[in-house]
C-alpha cells in the first residue's frame, strides 16, 4: 500500500439522518468522519451563528455579515466588522459550501472546520479568539467549531428554474435563458471554471478583477504566478446579491458580463481562459437572463 493513497482519500461519512437536499444538488455531500452531521449539532450551530456574544464587543454575529435573506452575504462591497472596521474583501454567499473544497477567496482553509473559527479571531471581524468566544457562550471550543461547520453545511440553494429544466421540465427556461445557457457552456466559455451543480471548479484563477492590490492565492502559496488569483465563486443566488468579485468592485451582473466580454483586465497572470468574447448585446442580455435563472430557494438546517 502506497502512502499517497491514504493521504489523498479523505475519510468520508454519511450525511446522517439524510439531510434533505434540494433539486439540482448531489444527494451525496462529503462530510468528515470526525464531525458527522447531527440535528443537535446543527441546531446548536444555528443558534451560535446568530449569537453576537461570539464577538469581543458583543455587536457582531456571523449573521451580521452573512445575512440569511441575502443568501448569507450582505449588500456591501467589502465586509464591516466590530467597531465599524472595514475589511478588504467582500462577504461571500455561504450556499452549498458543504460541497466545497477550498474556503475563503484565497482558499487558505481546506475545510469548514478550519474555516469557521477564523472570523472569531480576525481583529477586523469578531476581534477575539475562538477559545474566548466559546467561553462566552458556554460551549467547548471543539463543539463550537463542529457545530458552526455543521450548520454551514446545511445552508443549501437549489430548485432554481435551471434545476427544474435539467430535471426534465423543458418549459422552466424561456428562449433568452436557454440562449444564455448555450453561451455559458459554449461561446462565452464560462463553464470552463463555473461548472457542475455548484457552478465552480473550486480552483483559483486570475480574471484581473478588482483593484489589483490583493495578492489573492499568492498569499497562501507564495508563488508569483498565483498573484491576483481568487477562488471561482458559485453563481447560485448571485443575481440577487450584488455587488460582485472579491472586493465588490463590479456593481451589477451587466458590469460583470461586460468585464468578461472585454477579456478581463490584462495583467501578467491573467488566466488563458479569459479572452475577449465578442458577444452581441442580445447575447449579453441572454447571459444575464440565464444567471438570474440560477436564483432558487435557500434553505438551512432541517428547519424548512
Amino acid at each position, binding site marked *: 500500500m502506497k502512502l499517497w493513497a491514504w493521504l489523498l482519500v479523505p475519510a468520508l461519512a454519511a450525511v446522517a439522518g439524510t439531510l434533505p437536499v434540494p433539486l439540482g444538488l448531489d444527494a451525496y*455531500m462529503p462530510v468528515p468522519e470526525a464531525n458527522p452531521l447531527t440535528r443537535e449539532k446543527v441546531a446548536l450551530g444555528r443558534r451560535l451563528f446568530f449569537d453576537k456574544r461570539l464577538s469581543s464587543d458583543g455587536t457582531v454575529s456571523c449573521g451580521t455579515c452573512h445575512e440569511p435573506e441575502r443568501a448569507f452575504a450582505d449588500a456591501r462591497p467589502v465586509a464591516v466588522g466590530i467597531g465599524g472596521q472595514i475589511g478588504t474583501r467582500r462577504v461571500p454567499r455561504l450556499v452549498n459550501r458543504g460541497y466545497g473544497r477550498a474556503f475563503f477567496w484565497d482558499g487558505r482553509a481546506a475545510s469548514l472546520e478550519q474555516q469557521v473559527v477564523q472570523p472569531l479571531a480576525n481583529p477586523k471581524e469578531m476581534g477575539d479568539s475562538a477559545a474566548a468566544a466559546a467561553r462566552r457562550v458556554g460551549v467547548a471550543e471543539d463543539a463550537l467549531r463542529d457545530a458552526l461547520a455543521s450548520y454551514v453545511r446545511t445552508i443549501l440553494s437549489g430548485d432554481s428554474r435551471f434545476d427544474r429544466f435539467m430535471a*426534465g421540465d423543458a418549459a422552466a427556461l424561456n428562449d433568452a435563458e436557454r440562449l444564455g445557457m448555450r453561451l455559458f457552456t459554449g461561446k462565452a466559455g464560462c463553464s470552463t471554471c463555473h461548472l457542475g451543480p455548484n457552478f465552480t471548479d473550486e480552483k483559483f484563477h486570475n480574471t484581473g478583477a478588482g483593484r489589483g492590490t490583493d495578492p489573492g492565492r499568492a498569499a497562501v502559496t507564495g508563488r508569483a504566478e498565483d498573484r491576483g488569483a481568487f477562488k471561482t465563486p458559485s453563481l447560485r443566488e448571485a443575481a440577487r446579491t450584488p455587488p460582485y468579485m472579491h472586493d465588490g468592485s463590479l456593481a451589477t451582473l451587466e458590469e460583470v458580463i461586460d468585464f468578461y466580454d472585454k477579456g478581463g483586465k490584462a495583467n501578467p497572470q491573467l488566466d488563458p481562459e479569459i479572452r475577449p468574447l465578442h458577444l452581441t448585446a442580445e447575447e449579453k442580455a441572454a447571459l444575464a437572463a440565464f444567471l438570474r435563472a440560477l436564483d432558487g430557494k435557500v434553505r438551512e438546517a432541517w428547519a424548512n
Partner: protein
Amino acid sequence: MLAAAAAWGAGSNGPHAWWSGPQVTLLGSPSRDGRRLSFADPATGALGVRNLASGSWQAVAERPAGSREFAYFSVFSPDSRKIAYAWFNSQGFYDLRVTAAEAGAQPAVLYRNEEAGFVQPCAWTPDGKFVLTLLFRRDNISQIALVPAGGGAPRVLRSLNWVYPKKMDVSPDGRWIVYDNFAAEGKPERTIFLLSTDGSEERRLVDMPGNYLFPLWAPDGKGVFFAGDNGGPEEFWCVRVEQGRAQGPPRRVSGALGRFLPLGITDAGILFYGVRTGSPDVYLAPLDNLTSGVQPISTRFPGRNGAPAWSPDGRRLAYLSRRGTENFGQDARVIVVLDLSSGQEQEVPAAMAHLERLAWSPDGASLLVSGSDGKGRGGLFLVHMPDGATRLAAAEHDAPFRGYEAAWAADGKRFYYLHGGEELRSHRLADGAETTLLRAQVMEHLAISPAGDLLAVGIGGNAIRLTPLISGNTARLLPFPGLTELAWGRELYAGRGAELWAVPLDGTAPRRLGMPPDRQPGISIRSDGRTIALTAGREQSEVRSIELPRP
C-alpha cells in the same frame, strides 16, 4: 424459464465464444438468464436482441425510414422483460429510453435534455424502479443518477468533474452502487468506489496500486468483480464485500482474457464479455511497385495504430496509437513518432482528450492535430515537438470532437481547414486572422499539392474541386463518386472505402492502385513521393463468456 432455475456452479466452465462477425457491437448486456443479449445493430441503427443459443435476432426499437437515429448503450431489466437504452434522436443528442424487450413494443422516453445530451444506462435497481444512468453534461460534468423507470426527475447522486466511470452497477440488495473513478486527481489510474443509493455514503473499495475498472456485482451480492490492468494483460479480479466494506484483499479470478470489456454477469455467475479480435495497423508500401508488398511498421504496440503522417524530411513517421484498457466509443490515443533510421519510438504527450488526425508543419517543429481537449473544445491544436506543449490553433466550443480536416500551406505560415463542412478557411498563425476561401454544401476531405499552389477539396462526396491558391487560375471539378479521402504526392490520390485511386488532374480516367482489401482511411505520402503509409486491418469484436467462481 426464469433465472431462479439457474444455479451458480463451481466456476469451471472455460471461455465460450458466442458471437463474432461484422454485426457485433459491445454496447449491450446479457439478460439475467443468460439467454439473450441486447446490442446496437450497426447496419440499421436498431436496438437488437440476440438469442445467444440460436444466433437469431430481432429489432426491438427501430428508426423511422430515412432518419439517422440509432441505438447505443443498453441494459436489460432484472426480470429480462425490458431494456433501458440510449437513443441518438432526430435532434442530434441522446435520449434515455425504455422498451419492452420484444419486437413492435412502444418505447418511452425517460430523459431527454440537450444539456445532458449523452446518457449511458448501466444497470437497473433490483426492484426495477430505477435505471442507474450516467448523464454527461455540456459543462463536462458526468453525473451518477437514478432515473425513475416510470418517468420523473432523475435523482442525481454524485457529480464528477472531467471524468466518468467506465461502468457502474447496483448491488443485488439495492443499497450500493459500485463504480470506477480516478484514484487521485491528476493521476491516470482508476480504482473502485462504492456509493450508497441514498447518497449518504461513499467509500473506496479497492486500495492497491494499479488500474482497476469495469466493476460488476456478483449476483449473490457477496462481492464485486472488476478488471485490472497493471501494464500487462488485462485480468479479472474479485473482492468480497459485506455491509459495503471490503473483506480481505482482492484476488485474481482469471488469467489474461485479452483486451476485454465486461458486458454483464448472469444469475448463474456467467460473465459475458467482449474482446477485440481485429488489429488495425500502419503499413508502408513503395508506390512504384505496390505488388512487392505492404509491410507493417515495427512498433512496440502492434495492432492498435492508425492515422500515419510523414515528417517533411521523410525521416520520421507520426501516428496515433490506442492505449489503455478497452473502452466503449472514444478511445484514448497517443501520438507516437517513429524514427525510421534508428527504429526509435517516442510518445508525444499532447494535452488533448481525443486525437483524430495529424499533419506536420513544413518546418517539422510541430504537428497540427485535429480532435478535442478536455474542456469540450473541438477543432485544431498545435502540438510542439517533442515536448507536446499544446495550444489552440482553431478550436472552439460546439465544434465536433473529431475536429477539422486541415492542410498546411507550403510556407508554414498558415493552414487551410474545413470548418463545419461548409466553409474552407485560411488561418494565419501569426495573428489567428481567418479568411473564407470557399463556401459549399458538404465539403469533406482536403489535400494540398506539394508545390502549395492547389487545394483539392471533396465536394458532396462525389467530386473533387481543385481550388487554385494563386489568383488568376480557375477552379476545376473532377468527378469522383464515393470519395472518402484525399492525399497528394506525385499524383493526387483519392480513396473510395478500401480502394485507392490516382486521379489525373487533366480529367482523364483515375487509375486504381493495389491496396489491401481491409484498408482503412488514413494515408500519408512521403515527401519524395515514393512511399505511402497506410492503415489496414479491421477492428473486430467477439462476444464470449466464462463462468466465474463465487466471491
